[in-house]
């Protein structure tokens, strides 16, 4: 009974302290800067949740605009954001829409984060043990133990190894998006040259596939997990957002059939290159990059061939029309009587 009262008192005290910090923060020395950075911190937290959770952003281009702006702005306020970056009860209270423990004020030991963030942390810690234990619950259990949590917390992951693989996919995709946004930024600032489309695609796919290298031994197991029926929707979503990202940063703003053909082509290139990489034993996967070069060249050739065929077709049709009219003139059928 006293234990219960003590616990309740502690919790109330912590909640009050949380509230006090929220009230006191606006009266800080740099009110605008800190609130701005807290806002961006909140935005990046939410975006981190979005990119780490298994739901894709609803409209990819607008999200990447937000992400890009938040990313560049965060660099500007990096100094001010330092002090707020570790734990911010206000930001976390705002970014906990799906928990019903408002009265607890976001305090539970040292967990100033949502359940999703904790799950993401466990999965990230578990990735370290994947080369040894494969994509399995054991890796997740050991990952949880390195964070100081009991191995029973693996029960949170109802999809088991699938959760781990999907988390890894989401992490790689968001890393790639960061890199591409950074490059885009450099081009905007004039510090780098804009690449040709074929080169850009090649570099983007290579960067993304290089992230698989530490796990290449167990990647076939991961692919088989992704092909399980209940994982297929999620894995397709990740693949489609990846391909969309790459094309967006390559500068594709098409609104017609090209949108679909371009993404289909890149999906084919990415999947086949990934499969080639699995059984590639050349130094630094040189064979894979050569294969990638050839495939991109194929697609580029096909595009130019299609254009040539179209113009050739038009010319041929014009030629026929001309020949027909000449014939008609010769036989006198074209004269008007």
């Amino acid at each position, binding site marked *: 009974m006293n234990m219960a009262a003590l616990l309740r008192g502690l919790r109330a005290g912590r909640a009050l302290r949380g509230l006090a910090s929220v009230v006191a923060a606006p009266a800080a020395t740099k009110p605008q800067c800190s609130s701005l950075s807290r806002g961006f911190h909140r935005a990046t937290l939410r975006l981190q949740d979005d990119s780490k959770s298994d739901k894709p952003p609803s409209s990819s281009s607008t999200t990447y605009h937000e992400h890009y702006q938040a990313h560049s702005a965060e660099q500007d306020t990096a100094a001010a954001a330092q002090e707020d970056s570790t734990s911010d009860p206000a930001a976390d209270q705002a970014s906990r829409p799906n928990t019903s423990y408002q009265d607890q004020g976001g305090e539970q*030991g040292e967990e100033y984060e949502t359940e999703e963030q904790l799950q993401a942390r466990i999965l990230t810690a578990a990735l370290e043990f994947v080369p040894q234990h494969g994509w399995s619950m054991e890796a997740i259990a050991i990952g949880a133990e390195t964070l100081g949590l*009991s191995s*029973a*917390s693996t029960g949170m992951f109802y999809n088991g190894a699938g959760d781990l693989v999907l988390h890894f996919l989401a992490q790689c995709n968001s890393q790639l998006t960061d890199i591409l946004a950074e490059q885009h930024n450099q081009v905007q600032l004039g510090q780098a040259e804009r690449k040709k489309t074929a080169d850009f695609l090649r570099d983007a796919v290579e960067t993304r596939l290089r992230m698989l290298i530490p796990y290449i031994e167990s990647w076939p197991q991961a692919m088989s997990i992704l092909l399980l029926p209940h994982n297929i929707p999620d894995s397709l979503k990740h693949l489609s957002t990846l391909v969309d990202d790459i094309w967006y940063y390559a500068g594709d703003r098409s609104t017609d059939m090209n949108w679909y053909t371009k993404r289909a082509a890149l999906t084919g290139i990415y999947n086949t290159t990934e499969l080639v990489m699995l059984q590639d034993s050349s130094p630094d996967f040189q064979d894979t990059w050569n294969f990638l070069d050839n495939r991109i060249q194929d697609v580029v050739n096909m595009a130019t061939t299609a254009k040539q065929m179209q113009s050739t077709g038009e010319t041929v049709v014009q030629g026929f029309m001309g020949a027909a009219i000449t014939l008609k003139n010769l036989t006198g059928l074209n004269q008007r009587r």
Partner: protein
Amino acid sequence: MAASMRLLLRRVIRLSHRYNNVTAAGVSARSGCCWAPSTCRCFSDVAGDRSTHFGFETVPETEKAKRVYKVFENVAQKYDTMNDVMSLGIHRLWKDMLLHAMHPQPGARLLDVAGGTGDISFRFLEYARSQQERQKRRTARSMQTPSSQDISNNYFTEDEDTPQESRAVVCDINKEMLNVGRKRADSMGISAGLSWVVGNAEELPFDDDQFDIYTIAFGIRNVTHIDQALQEALRVLKPGGRFMCLEFSKVTNPVLARIYDAYSFQMIPVLGEVIAGDWKSYQYLVESIRKFPDQEEFKYMIEDAGFYCVKYNNLTGGVVALHSGFKL
């Protein structure tokens, strides 16, 4: 012989009539009754004399624990038989599903509160043992053609590779139930990693942060202060530990609910009288199920106690609910 049979029959019919009237009133006023004791408790708190429900009766809180103790003392010997008869053997499936949902990792420590005759703990140790054997077979298969590197590695890592033992602690307030459980364990030959402790779920005799998994199967409705039991569970669990509760709950389907009610109130006490010779205990059992909060309410209680990621599954259409929460 015929005379004694007739006497028994007449006694059964008389008892059933008497309890039928009580239970009919109880069932119809079930929703009212559910809230009444909590409000009663509020008011009687002020008056300084707290009472709670014991089945459909109202008893002082201090007395409930004693009466529950007596109930289980009476039923201990025939507990397992009665479980099989009353649930038509389905209780084994429920407990198997609890273990399946738990999927404990090797080296986990289990605290089975109100574990009584040890069903959950036996299954847990069985699971741990088969997991270990599977692990051994896997390493043996991968070691069939060891390279020289593997052999040299084996020499160095022999000491570090001792697999962690899974351990289970069965805790119950009732010594009789623990005795029955210990006899079962001896007869089944399970002794390694199993301990039997007498303790009250509201005041567990363990230190903080001790266990990976806390289970309470069909026991929490007998606890006088459920929120205290939940807080004790939170206390003894390690960070990241899991709380799992298997308990009878509200049936969602109305047709099934009527059949279930009829079965509970007509059949079960009769079976109790015929097989175990104890009508009242099984009447208490059935009534206490009705007094227990439903799935959503119990989920809120678990969340209030401080658990996260609380979820529940209905088994057998809501007859039994499996709640699970994490200490994060």
